[in-house]
């Protein structure tokens, strides 16, 4: 195995916890059961590394196989680095009929036409998502496997999620995607985060939403905890109304684990009219950047709304995170409904 392969494998072994590495090897059909048993994961990483190198050399596997292993590993724990969401726009009528094989061939051919040395690997994940690993080279240098770009695309949907893509490579990727999916444009979805599953579930609405309905909403049944007959909550309807509005705005039960939301405010100053009279009359915008952060942002907002820290109905700025599937907003004077003052 050449030392570049060795460096690549070493980086993979070093970065992945033993258990995860074991699971990844399990999923990688190339290894026979015997070979897999032979690797002892309890030993320190260096020893594990040597055993793997021996197996690779024994089977004469090359860098290609190592990158395959790395891709499987990445697909299993993708919640690292920063994922950005894009949405493809104005689909041609056959956009919905794109089939995997067809997409695979077209994407590879288009991309290799645009960039001379590029290595593309496409795999289908258990949840029908298409994973694309791109190692970029250029006319002089071979594909750089140390900094691959990962792209996740769900066929028949306009959504694409990308990580570690630089601005130079972006136009090529966009071109290849458009040509092979039957869409004609692409736009930034203003949604990014560390947890791929979170931003995907938010954008593709894969979480429990609460809608107004005629019947007694399941929420109120859930938390009518049987309490002591002597204890009576006076404002229980207010509380349940707040909870209903909170869940309608931020989802019910397990919600996508978004961690940040950023608002760039460029609206006029909106203090209380009497104390800051001069400011409210001021012409220019009151520019400020507001960043919300929490281990589970939607849950935090939901509790703010249900506990009354945030007054309900929830501000359209906050509820548009789930409505529009975004977590980056530039709010200008017209962007804000006038009724907001």
């Amino acid at each position: 195995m050449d030392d570049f392969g060795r460096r690549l494998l070493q980086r993979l072994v070093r970065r992945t916890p033993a258990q995860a590495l074991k699971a990844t090897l399990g999923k990688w059909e190339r290894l026979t059961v015997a070979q897999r048993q032979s690797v002892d994961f309890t030993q320190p990483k260096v020893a594990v590394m040597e055993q793997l190198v021996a197996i690779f050399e024994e089977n004469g596997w090359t860098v290609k196989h190592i990158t395959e292993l790395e891709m499987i590993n990445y697909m299993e724990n993708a919640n690292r680095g920063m994922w950005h969401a894009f949405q493809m726009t104005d689909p041609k009528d056959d956009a919905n009929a794109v089939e995997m094989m067809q997409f695979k061939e077209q994407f590879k051919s288009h991309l290799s036409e645009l960039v001379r040395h590029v290595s593309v690997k496409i795999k289908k994940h258990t949840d029908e998502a298409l994973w694309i690993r791109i190692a970029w080279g250029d006319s002089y240098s071979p594909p750089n496997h140390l900094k691959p770009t990962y792209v996740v695309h769900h066929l028949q949907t306009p959504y694409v999620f990308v990580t570690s893509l630089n601005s130079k490579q972006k136009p090529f990727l966009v071109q290849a995607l458009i040509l092979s999916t039957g869409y004609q444009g692409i736009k930034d979805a203003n949604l990014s985060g560390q947890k791929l599953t979170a931003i995907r579930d938010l954008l593709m609405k894969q979480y429990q939403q609460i809608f107004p309905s005629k019947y007694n909403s399941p929420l109120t049944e859930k938390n009518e905890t049987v309490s002591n007959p002597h204890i009576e909550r006076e404002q229980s309807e207010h509380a349940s109304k707040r909870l209903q509005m909170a869940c309608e705005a931020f989802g019910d039960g397990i919600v996508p684990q978004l961690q940040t939301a950023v608002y760039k405010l460029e609206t006029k100053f909106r203090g209380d009219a009497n104390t800051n009279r001069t400011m409210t009359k001021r012409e220019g915008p009151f520019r400020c950047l507001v960043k919300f952060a929490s281990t589970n942002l939607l849950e935090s907002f939901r509790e703010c709304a249900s506990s009354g820290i945030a007054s309900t109905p929830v501000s359209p700025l906050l509820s548009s995170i789930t409505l529009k599937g975004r977590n980056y907003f530039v709010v200008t004077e017209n962007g804000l409904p006038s009724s907001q003052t």
Partner: protein
Amino acid sequence: MEGASSKGVLSHLSHLEVVTRSRKCEAQQPGRVAELKAKAAALVKQRDQLKAQIQIQQNLQKLRKSMNKHSNEEEEEMDEDSENSQLLRLMARHSHLRDLLDAHHLIGGYDVIKTSQGKGMCVSLATAYEGVYLDTYNLELDLKPKLRIRRHNIPPFIPLNQLAEQSNMEANIKPFLHLLSQHLNAFAGRKQQLKLVKENHKSIEVMESNVLCSILVLMLTVPRQKTAVLCTLDYTDQTRCLPTNARFESEDKELLNSPDWKKHCSLLKDTPLHKALTTMKTIGSIM
């Protein structure tokens, strides 16, 4: 001495008590009469109200009958006080729409309720296949300033925005809801068929499928020579849960040209997949 005076005082007190008790019940008598009179008046008022309601209902029934018959001749006897008949016509239309909604709810079409104080409405579309209720999808719409989809939990591979433009939702929502309900029910039907195939036909391997279940590739095995036949089903028309095209591929060319397999091809196109596969199994052309 002290006892006598107290007795005096006590007896005086009891006397006063007797006097007040008697006076109170006399006052009682006229009060009783007034009370009864008021009750009577209230009852009369209630009766008149009920009478008026019956009258309105009768008019409504007549109007609804005439509306259903689309009789175009003018209802002469109705228009003596036009403002009143106008109101009645409005009430008739309202109750007509309400019945329509209940009907939709019953046949599993969709439910519509008013939200955010009349500024919005929420449509919930139920899906079902072969009598089994499947998922229900919701759609919250803003009525003001114009009809706009505010929030929904329709899966992303259903092209909601194209459907909205295509059926000109802003002008009239009924065709849009109908089209969307068709798409959702077809999708639910296809997904249900795939689920049933995986459950009932373990021997048949699903090689390829997608989230929209708009394409399906199955691996069939012919019993005798164990030759493999690759069956590809295309559901290009997404408002139907039956494939628009079915084709087979296999090394054994002439097997495919046999009449049985020709029949299988059309069988797959007009019967649900899980049923078609069972019949092919019973005929014995596949394992």
